[in-house]
């Protein structure tokens, strides 16, 4: 904190121009009969609701509750014993979860444990929703944490997609009879992709850090933030829907098909796209279409007007 800022927050000195100005804030007195009005309102005010009483159930339910608690406790103890390997010490076989699932579905255990190609959305994101304005640093930190969760998830999806593309590119080369990549070449390619991704992440992190500092300052100054303050919707222009649709179509194409689709565009539009791509590569201009302020838009805020990729 600078000396000037400290002075700004110093106590207001009596007799100073500011103190004199504040002292002129006159307050009117209470209106006549105020006490009588309050007393009248108190007399006609309905009695406050009584405290909620604990529901006393029937005798049967009390038994049922006891049984339910017993079953749950036994289950918890048994699970703990199985997890710590205590049952195996007494030669009691404990089937693994995969085996149980395979026996239920009729599939082999290997199939049952096969992981999906894309990592699933983090479970806690489903319940991630902040109601009302964000006006405390704790709420803001929670919002940032949720956003970071989504960003991490998206990074994982992106990494997975890159791996798939490299694998399919190698397959295509093999199918075309081209010489296969040596392990060194493949490692170099992956390192290059990783470096590009790190560069891109760094740019996004810088932008987000600056924006977050601004938001934190606002919250600390007592302002309440809405979802729109944190995740600004992407600006809409006349071409935005068309651009989004084109991006959606191109995403499913191979690089060759994508290049061909680019060649089919009108000359001016093609030049504009290429120019925009170049400026994005240099990192000194916003993307078109622009992503929301929190670049990796969180799913819980449900605002991604434009996909991040």
């Amino acid at each position, binding site marked *: 904190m600078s000396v000037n*800022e400290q002075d*700004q*927050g*110093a*106590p*207001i*000195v*009596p007799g*100073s*121009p*500011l*103190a004199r*100005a*504040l*002292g*002129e*804030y*006159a*307050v*009117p*007195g*209470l*209106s006549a009969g*105020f*006490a009588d*009005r*309050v*007393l009248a*309102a*108190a*007399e006609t*005010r309905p009695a*406050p609701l009584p405290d909620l009483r604990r529901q006393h159930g029937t005798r049967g339910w009390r038994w049922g509750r006891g049984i339910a608690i017993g079953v749950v406790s036994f289950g918890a103890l048994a699970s703990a014993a199985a997890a710590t390997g205590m049952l195996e010490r007494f030669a009691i076989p404990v089937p693994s979860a995969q085996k149980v699932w395979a026996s239920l579905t009729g599939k082999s255990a290997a199939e049952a444990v096969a992981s999906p190609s894309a990592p699933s959305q983090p479970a806690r994101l489903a319940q991630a929703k902040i109601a009302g*304005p964000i006006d405390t640093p704790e709420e803001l930190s929670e919002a940032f944490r949720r956003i970071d969760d989504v960003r991490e998830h998206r990074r994982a999806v992106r990494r997975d997609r890159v791996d798939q593309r490299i694998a399919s590119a190698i397959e295509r080369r093999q199918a075309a009879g081209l010489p296969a990549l040596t392990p060194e070449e493949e490692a170099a390619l992956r390192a290059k992709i990783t470096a590009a991704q790190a560069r891109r992440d760094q740019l996004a992190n810088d932008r987000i850090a600056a924006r977050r500092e601004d938001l934190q300052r*606002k919250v*600390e*100054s*007592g*302002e*309440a*933030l*809405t979802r*729109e*303050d944190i995740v600004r919707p992407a600006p809409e222009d006349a071409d935005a829907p068309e651009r989004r649709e084109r991006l959606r179509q191109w995403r499913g194409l191979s690089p060759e098909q994508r290049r061909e689709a680019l060649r089919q565009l009108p000359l001016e539009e093609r030049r504009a796209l290429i120019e925009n791509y170049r400026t994005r590569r240099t990192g000194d201009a916003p993307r078109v279409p622009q992503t929301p302020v929190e670049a990796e838009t969180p799913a819980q805020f449900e605002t991604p007007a434009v996909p991040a990729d």
Partner: protein
Amino acid sequence: MNASGQPSTSALPVAPPGDDAALAARLAARDPEALREVIAHHAAVLHRTAFRMTGDAHEAEDIVQEACLRLWDQAPKIAARHPLGRQPAAALRLGAWLQRVVTNLAIDRLRRARRLADGDVPDHADEAPLADRLLEAGERDDTARALIAALPERQRAAIVLTYYEELSNAEAAEAMELNIKAFESLLHRARAALRQAWTAQGGAS
């Protein structure tokens, strides 16, 4: 006025230890005279706070009335928690309780009014005077009112409680349900914002 920012004698009417507990017991027994005594002791202070926070005399009276009625409603519970002749009874301060309720009600109403007036939360407090304020431009207190009104709700409460009502930082923090460090930080920002607004209006601090 607590211009130096040092803890000062509270401006809240302070009853001898145990008196507020006796008053609470009478309120719990539904004694209207007890409520009249509470109003006589505390309403003026509460009204000043509410008025300086909202800038509206009717709204301020409404807030004070609501606070008194809440005390009327809650009196049985308060009296039960502070039984006469016991140690907790001496700690009961109805003035502080009412001040806390009034501050919270005023902040709530200001926030609600802002939401109703404009769906978007502005990045910064709107310092432009409203049309009706412009009509009152000739009044002497207009500058002070505009300065206070330009502050966000919580900063406004911090200034009103410490500067105008001369509560100590600890009492004001209690009224705003903040810990003392958080309150002092809020008060620091409030004074800085006040000075900036004052400088922007051409004033010299």
